[in-house]
């Protein structure tokens, strides 16, 4: 297992470099930030000074070298917008996103496992159909619509929750997490249901029943672990998109996360911050993918032996 993780990590180094390089190049394709940050009146000399100060006048190779040199020291430069260190800004915003993503996936996964298994246990029953319908609907609700409606119903209408912000402890989490979780919950429920339906008709389930195992035991001990792999793949993809920025939710609820930071730095052509944020999320995503692969291996001994990196 250790071997596997190490090899997997090594094989992620090059892609990470590619991501960093890609961000560098792509960001620069969006135009010169000078016009955004310099006053309209800026003289050519001022423009030149700005360009020089930010190193935009060096040859592209020099810039790339400086950039990667900085990356190794976790120095991404300073934000054009705020003047702060880009790395600081990214590191400050990231925990909020991770917490949000973590809570969301926890709830979505738990809900999906319970609802999905329950629906799969009696395929085509009324309960199954209702659960399936609801999960499909959940998967297609526009999130900002859900969020704003939620704010007006639960915060303003019922007064049960704060509208937004992070200052009300657990209550502050309810609406953002609900908004974020609704689609993953819907999608995962469908995946779990599908996987459970097949797992429940597998020969080992019949063997378990022949030992006198009851329904709960059959589902929880036998089918679930076998059904976990496809659910894990999808859950991974969903988590990735959460880590990559829950822009809408962070924007609406004033949640100071990396998604909002990224979008602000994109619209603000704030390359340094963008690069720091992308590196942070990319590393997290790579780690996440490795964790998922390890989970596969933990779930199923056969994977341990055949896994290629």
């Amino acid at each position, binding site marked *: *297992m*250790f*071997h*596997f993780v190490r090899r997997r990590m090594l094989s992620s180094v090059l892609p990470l470099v590619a991501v960093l390089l890609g961000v560098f190049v792509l960001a620069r394709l969006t135009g010169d930030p000078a016009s955004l940050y310099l006053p309209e009146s800026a003289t050519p000399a001022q423009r030149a000074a700005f360009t020089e100060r930010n190193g935009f006048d060096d040859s592209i190779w020099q810039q790339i070298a400086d950039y990667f040199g900085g990356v190794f020291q976790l120095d991404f430069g300073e934000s054009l917008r705020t003047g702060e260190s880009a790395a600081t800004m990214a590191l400050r915003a990231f925990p909020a996103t991770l917490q949000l993503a973590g809570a969301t996936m926890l709830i979505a996964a738990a809900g999906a496992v319970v609802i999905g298994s329950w629906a799969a246990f009696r395929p085509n029953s009324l309960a199954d159909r209702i659960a399936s319908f609801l999960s499909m609907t959940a998967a297609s609700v526009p999130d900002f619509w859900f969020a704003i409606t939620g704010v007006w119903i639960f915060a303003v209408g019922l007064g049960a929750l704060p509208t937004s912000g992070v200052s009300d402890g657990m209550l502050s989490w309810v609406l953002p997490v609900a908004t974020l979780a609704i689609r993953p919950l819907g999608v995962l429920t469908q995946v779990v249901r599908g996987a459970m339906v097949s797992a429940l008709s597998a020969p080992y389930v019949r063997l378990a029943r022949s030992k006198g195992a009851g329904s709960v035991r059959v589902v929880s001990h036998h089918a679930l672990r076998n059904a976990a792999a496809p659910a894990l793949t999808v859950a991974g993809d969903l988590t990735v998109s959460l880590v990559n920025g829950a822009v809408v939710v962070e924007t609406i609820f004033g949640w100071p996360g990396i998604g909002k930071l990224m979008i602000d730095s994109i619209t603000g052509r704030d390359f340094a911050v963008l690069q720091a944020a992308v590196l942070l999320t990319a590393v997290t995503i790579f780690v996440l993918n490795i964790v998922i692969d390890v989970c596969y291996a933990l779930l199923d001994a056969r994977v*341990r*032996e*055949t896994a290629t990196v």
Partner: protein
Amino acid sequence: MTHTADTADTAGTADPSGEPLLRVRDLTKTFPVRSGGRTRQLRALGGISFDLRRGETLGLVGESGCGKSTLARTLLMLERPDSGTVRFDGVDPFTLRGARLLQWRRRVQMVFQDPFASLNARMTAGDIVSEPWRTHKDLFPSAKERGARVRELLGLVGLRAGDEHRYPQEFSGGQRQRIGIARALALDLSVQAQVLNLLNDLQRQLGVSYVFISHDLSVVRHVADRVMVMYLGGIVEQGGTEAVFGRALHPYSAALMSAAPSLDEAGRGRQIILEGELPSPLSPPSGCRFRTRCWKATDECAAASPEPAPDPEDGGHTAACFHPMGKEAEPVPAGRGAR
């Protein structure tokens, strides 16, 4: 329990004397097995040599996991051997490319061991049987012809009209096996209707050669001209069917023959029940592979591995054993599970 019939068709007549159709020498195949971060070599085939003559049926028997399927898969180029040579009509099939490879593919077919897994569950029986023609498009250009041909082939193996529209899981295990046979025959242009009572019927007419792999010794005895007995990746005994079945030289062969159940009490001799499992191919025993389970084993067996030696009375019957079985039934030591 049968499994593989590698039907190698030569489209000629049986010619037991001439150059062998298939000549295999010193074939070895190991699989890398990863465990605990370490990669170990599993020796599935450890130096296999034999000839398959034209029009001959070669029976291949042996304990589960001894490498029979691996040998068949290697002959079919589904696995690449580590060393050793395969000559088919004097040509090494592993060097073939393009049209010549396709031509070769037409001539060698395999019926798979596992009738559950070797048929694609999403294809109907008809699709499965006609699948080879999708690669070899020249064979039956018209759809109508193909349909008729599929029905004919299915009929040959004892399925009925209308069955070509059914899916594998709607057939019983035996019927699935027959679909596999029909598929293997699909590329054989000259198979005619009403021929497949026994595989050797076909053989008689077409000179098809078979490598017939089976756990069912009575069937092997019935169809094979010659028999090879494998144990742990190596051939321990080979010879004419009657010679081997009549008087097994190698203790393993003897145990194998004795273990087969028999319908009539008279034919039922003392069963030698081997103790323990096949030793791990990851760490085969030194010297003779069988010595760990052999009641005749001596120090000599651990020291050196026996070479195939011919039976003094029958040159075509060889066994790799230092202590071959004698002519008379030998007493099997108690505690060895004899019944």
